[in-house]
């Protein structure tokens, strides 16, 4: 199999995945116990109102018919209107998604910038004090819930020192970066811990690989071996890992945005739960799952580009 065939097959895989995501979101919304209509309308709704809403949502049709029409409207990009805001759900999400993507992107950059050098120091000093110190610090980071880290950073850097705004998003690009810095740092901490931990393990593994011994035996200087051979292979592992972690990053963004009042899709999701805005919750679940599967695709393609063994 050559590389373009591999790439094509990988791209085609997206289609059944999207279809399955659609089915799963449908099942989630319709088949779980709990009556969506009465929880949307409240307990004191009249029977007429309940019947009208049931009909409006198409809940009086068979499950199969409902699923097909759901998948069809998703494919046409029609995800309904928000019950709370009375605007198309996609517009609501479209307005807020860039904020969440910027936040997640900044968090990824910070996490990688911190984790990669730390993983190197830790691996090269394995089981001596710098390694133990780095691992302990990151272990604490891994055990700290995102909302708590956010509150602590907020208290210290926004509340007491007043270096950063307490929340919000600002109006210009510069303000966006400034407002999102603390939230991104919050989100980056546990992400950096995951990256550091697995990168350290993969560097240790690479360091004992035969081709590294061979490179050393050829008389290459330590630094050349480290950067050409070890770093390259370790980065491949990092790219895969970052791709796999996008899901938990987005999950973390839901909490971070709530703590810092960032107007992204995460906060929209939590707000929608309390507003019983089911079309928005359903659409967001769908959009976020599609995003993760696209991130997995991108990480596979980048991995193919970095690692000549993939797709051969």
């Amino acid at each position, binding site marked *: 199999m050559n590389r373009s065939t591999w790439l094509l097959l990988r791209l085609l895989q997206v289609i059944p995945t999207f279809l399955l995501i659609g089915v799963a979101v449908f099942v989630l919304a319709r088949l779980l116990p709990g009556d969506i209509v009465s929880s949307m309308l409240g307990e004191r709704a009249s029977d007429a109102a309940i019947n009208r809403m049931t009909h409006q949502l198409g809940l009086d049709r068979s499950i199969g018919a409902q699923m097909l029409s759901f998948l069809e409207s998703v494919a046409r990009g029609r995800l309904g209107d928000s019950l709370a805001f009375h605007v198309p759900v996609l517009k609501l999400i479209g307005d807020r998604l860039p904020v969440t993507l910027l936040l997640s992107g900044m968090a990824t950059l910070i996490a990688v910038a911190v984790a990669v050098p730390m993983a190197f120091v830790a691996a090269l000093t394995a089981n001596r004090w710098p390694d133990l110190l780095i691992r302990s610090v990151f*272990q604490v980071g891994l055990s700290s819930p995102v909302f*708590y880290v956010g509150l602590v950073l907020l208290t210290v850097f926004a509340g007491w020192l007043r270096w950063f705004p307490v929340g919000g998003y600002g109006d210009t690009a510069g303000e966006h970066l400034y407002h999102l810095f603390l939230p991104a740092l919050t989100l980056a901490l546990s992400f950096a811990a995951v990256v550091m931990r697995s990168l350290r393990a993969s560097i240790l593994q690479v360091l004992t690989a035969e081709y590294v011994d061979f490179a050393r035996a050829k008389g290459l200087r330590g630094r050349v071996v480290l950067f050409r051979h070890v770093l390259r292979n370790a980065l491949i592992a990092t790219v895969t890992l970052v791709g796999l972690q996008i*899901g938990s990053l987005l999950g973390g963004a839901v909490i971070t945005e709530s703590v810092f009042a960032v107007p992204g899709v995460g906060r929209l999701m939590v707000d929608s739960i309390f507003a019983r805005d089911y079309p928005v919750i359903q659409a967001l679940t769908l959009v976020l799952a*599609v995003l993760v599967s696209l991130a997995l695709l991108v990480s596979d393609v980048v991995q193919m580009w970095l690692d000549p063994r993939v797709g051969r």
Partner: protein
Amino acid sequence: MRRISVPLWLGLGILALLLLCAAAPQLLWPTDPLAFDFAALTAAPSWAHPFGTDQFGRDMLARTIAASSVDLQIALFSVVFPLMIGTLIGLAVGWYGGWLDAVFGRLVDLVVTFPFLVLVIAIVAVLGPGLVNMYIAVACVGWVAYARLIRGEVMVQRNSDYVAAARVLGYSTARIVFRHILPNALRPVLVYSVTDMALCILLGSSLGYLGLGAQPPTAEWGVLIADGKNFFTTAPWITLFPGVAIVLAGLGFSLAGDGLADLLEVKR
């Protein structure tokens, strides 16, 4: 058998302390967590109130200790149900293989594309906030990881000599799977479940903080932090100490999980 390592001792020590807090809160700090002390509203930490008091003058040390039983319950229940469901499904998939395994493979691919927290939140949104619904949501999503682990183990064990011997002896499938394979396949799963408890404590307290998990007035660390978040600049101790408790619990479970994995030589 290797020696018990320092991190494992540390993890087990933290867990023992938490169990003590949950089992005998009065023994550690006899103040009533619900008693209002109007002489000390939002009082800073002192000898009388080492963790300070909240806006109603409730002792934060007593409240933090009282919450430990709820958070330990979260760790336990968020792991036990996915563990049981996942084990049964993993045994079936691993033993029978074939189309069952193909379907399972697709299901795993699908679950991986949903952000765990987003999926749990979406399910809680449909069922309504609360601890029981949170357990249901976590079980709906979490069983996959356990089933995957068990499936892998069963696939290895299935072809081993002792299973062939049991077959020759004419034992029933149920007897072979539950009496012979399961005990051998369970070790990595149990080790993973300890690490998973750390994640579940973080998840449970996060949902509590957002108002989707334990509901006030239940004392749960995330709920305590949500209660105090409006005072975070003026009375940071209300949020600080329950947070330290979460970090400690998370550390305890993950150190114990990692330590057990090393001790029992389980691959992760």
